[in-house]
């Protein structure tokens, strides 16, 4: 990059930071008020009557969890059925029913907030499936993540109680009071930038040079807004936010990045407000922000240098990048998308430089906590904060307590199990893809697109993305096969719901405790030392877990 381009990149990043800074307090506090208010809106009372819920009742963590699981199971079933029935649904653009394996994978993918797409939507999904199947899950899967995070915060803020809130009330408020109004405004802004919103089907034109072109239509803006705001990431079109109808200009690109980061980066404020100590929120925010900046810088430097045979022959790493965006608008989007659980792309990660592509994987491997997905990012970071307090306690002889709660064997076991879950899924899935001879043959002959080490990276990326519920891909991979539709589907399910079980159990365990008074032996968790320690634990836990497998793929490719 020239020095002008570096300054422009800094200015673009500063704009984003300024916007996030301006919304941090109002949005964070609004979310806190939303979930602490005892008043129901009239429309909410109507909904509770209709579905048979007592909005004033409280749930134990077990009942809360059963609500999450039942709601998600019904969601998977409905999205599966809608896809299987596509042939008879209106506005299906003539597309046939979606096959069983792909329907399973896609249903799981959207319910788990992953939005992995084994298919190319342009030639697979009609408007009805996208609207009543996929876009609905974009809202409610984000609502579930948010609800679970709020339940964990209540674990810290409540004392000696057996309840952590009401799942149905939390889900409703998250969707109705936060996601829906913000999505509506964002969708209109996106239309102003050129994102389409019609049901026109395809418009056939004779091009200027005398060829033909079939220009697609579709209800894109309404889906684009919640796809990003809910950190979902499933594109209306195959190339996602690289498509000019999803992301027409550099300013819509920056706006879409803001949508991805808005709620995740404001939730630390919600946390600080709800536990009654805003400094605790700033500490979590600082850790998230530090990791984000370092990761963004690394990816940008790798892409700007553009090493590797292809980029050097072409004179830069512009393969798979749009001219209007260039390097920085692409790396800022790529970082934001993989370090949250979004998984949208405005450039093809498969074509990034070897080490650049590794950074997008590394962001996901961190567990998507800087700032992570809507809700999921905050609860992931709080689990690591618990581990950090425990480690600090061992190191300097402090009593392990966080926010007035004792961290006993039960809490540490739950937090440790949480941290072990996704690496196990990712590494086992990748290993099985190459260890089972029949699967390996299929993976190598059908699925892998790029030869050599990069092909291994495509498989590793797929399981990293599925296990962490991200949804982005090294998209050269052909994932619409029995093995990947099944294995990635299972990885998404386990990667979403096993951690949620541990988080809600943790919430219940913390809520049942009283408050431990602060003493000289209490480790302060709002100071820079703690922030540094927290970042250190994130990096050490992840680096040690994934370093060997990264060395087999992107690291080896980048250093050869």
């Amino acid at each position, binding site marked *: 990059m020239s020095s002008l381009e570096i300054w*422009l990149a800094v*200015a673009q990043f500063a704009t984003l930071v300024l916007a996030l800074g301006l919304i941090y307090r109002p949005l964070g506090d609004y979310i806190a008020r939303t979930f602490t208010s005892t008043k129901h809106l009239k429309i909410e009372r109507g909904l509770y009557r*209709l*579905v048979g819920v007592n909005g004033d009742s409280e749930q134990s963590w077990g009942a809360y969890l059963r*609500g999450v*699981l*039942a*709601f998600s199971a*019904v969601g998977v079933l*409905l999205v599966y059925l809608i896809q299987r029935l596509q042939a008879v649904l209106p506005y299906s653009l003539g597309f046939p029913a979606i096959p069983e394996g792909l329907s399973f994978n896609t249903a799981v993918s959207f319910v788990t907030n992953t939005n992995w797409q084994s298919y*190319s939507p*342009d030639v697979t999904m009609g408007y009805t499936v996208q609207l009543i199947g996929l*876009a*609905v899950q974009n809202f*409610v899967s984000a609502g579930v993540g948010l609800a679970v995070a709020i339940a964990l915060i209540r674990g810290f803020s409540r004392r000696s109680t057996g309840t952590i809130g009401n799942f*149905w009330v939390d*889900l409703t408020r998250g969707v109705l009071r936060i996601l*829906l109004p913000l999505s*509506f405004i964002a*969708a*209109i802004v996106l*239309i*102003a930038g050129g994102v389409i*919103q*019609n049901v*026109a089907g395809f418009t056939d*034109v004779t*091009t*200027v*040079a005398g060829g033909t*072109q079939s*220009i697609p*239509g579709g209800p894109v803006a309404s889906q684009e807004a919640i796809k990003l705001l809910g950190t979902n990431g499933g594109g209306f079109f*195959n*190339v996602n936010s*690289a*498509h*000019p109808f999803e992301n*027409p200009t*550099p300013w819509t*690109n920056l706006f879409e990045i803001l949508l991805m980061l808005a709620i995740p980066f404001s939730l630390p404020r919600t946390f600080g407000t709800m536990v009654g100590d805003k400094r605790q929120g700033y500490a979590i925010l600082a850790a998230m922000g530090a990791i984000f900046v370092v990761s963004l810088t690394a990816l940008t430097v790798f892409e700007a240098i553009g090493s590797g045979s*292809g980029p050097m*022959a072409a*004179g*830069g790493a*512009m*393969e*798979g990048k*749009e001219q209007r965006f260039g390097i920085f608008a692409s790396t800022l989007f790529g970082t934001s998308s993989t370090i949250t659980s979004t998984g949208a792309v405005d450039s093809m990660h*498969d*074509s990034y*430089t*070897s080490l650049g592509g590794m950074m997008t994987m590394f962001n996901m491997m961190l567990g998507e906590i800087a700032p992570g997905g809507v809700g999921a990012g905050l609860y992931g970071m709080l689990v690591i904060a618990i581990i950090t307090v425990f480690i600090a306690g061992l190191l300097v002889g402090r009593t392990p307590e966080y926010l007035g709660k004792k961290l006993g064997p039960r809490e540490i076991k739950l937090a440790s199990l949480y941290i072990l879950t996704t690496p196990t899924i990712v590494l086992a899935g990748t290993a099985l893809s190459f260890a089972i001879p029949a699967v390996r043959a299929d993976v190598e002959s059908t699925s892998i*697109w*790029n030869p*050599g*080490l*990069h092909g291994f990276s495509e498989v590793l990326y797929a399981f990293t993305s599925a296990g962490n519920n991200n949804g982005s891909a090294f*998209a*050269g991979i052909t994932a619409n096969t029995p093995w990947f539709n099944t294995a990635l589907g299972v990885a998404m399910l386990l990667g979403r719901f096993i951690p949620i079980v541990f988080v809600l159990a943790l919430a219940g365990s913390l809520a049942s405790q009283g408050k431990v008074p602060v003493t000289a032996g209490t480790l302060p968790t709002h100071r820079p030392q703690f922030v540094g320690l927290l970042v250190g634990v994130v990096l050490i836990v992840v680096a040690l877990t994934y370093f060997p497998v990264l060395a087999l793929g992107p690291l080896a490719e980048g250093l050869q």
Partner: protein
Amino acid sequence: MASSRGFARPYWVALRYMIVATIALGIVYPLAVFGVGQLALPAQANGSLITDAGGTVVGSSLIGQSFTDADGNALPEWFQSRPSAAGYDASASVGSNYGPENPDFLDEIAARKAAIAELEGVDPSDIPVDALTTSASGLDPQISPEYALLQVPRVAEARGLEESQVHDLVESAIQGRDLGYLGNETVNVLQLNLALAQLG
């Protein structure tokens, strides 16, 4: 409460909840966005379509087109778009997804370099990166100002126009960075070629 009923109850609530959510979020919400879009911003909501002098729709200002013959050879009288993995088929967007070391990728870059150097009569080292690489979408409507200016002599010759005339046209078609500082400077190839057609 009986235990069997207790177990089934959340599923029954969930089913009713999903039906309401599907109507509200899957039908009412997109329709509301559709309504506002069609009333307040119809040009954008319908795809930023552009028409020629006769009023016929010839494309979208946001979707790139190819200016090649049926065999994929560049038509010298038109400015050329970036290479595309989708062949500018707007109904099936796709990127190449070539990894940085893929031998096919290296072959394609070499072939493009040779073809463009010959077509434009320039040194291969003078070809800008956007001319040698495919975009993410396969539908990129824009090229760099450098690549547009590189094509001026060839286009002027093919059309029997003064080079300075075509050069001025390109200069006036350069779109600055968004808000002055976001993204890259670009030239929209379809709009440039439409202006070119007006020139004669």
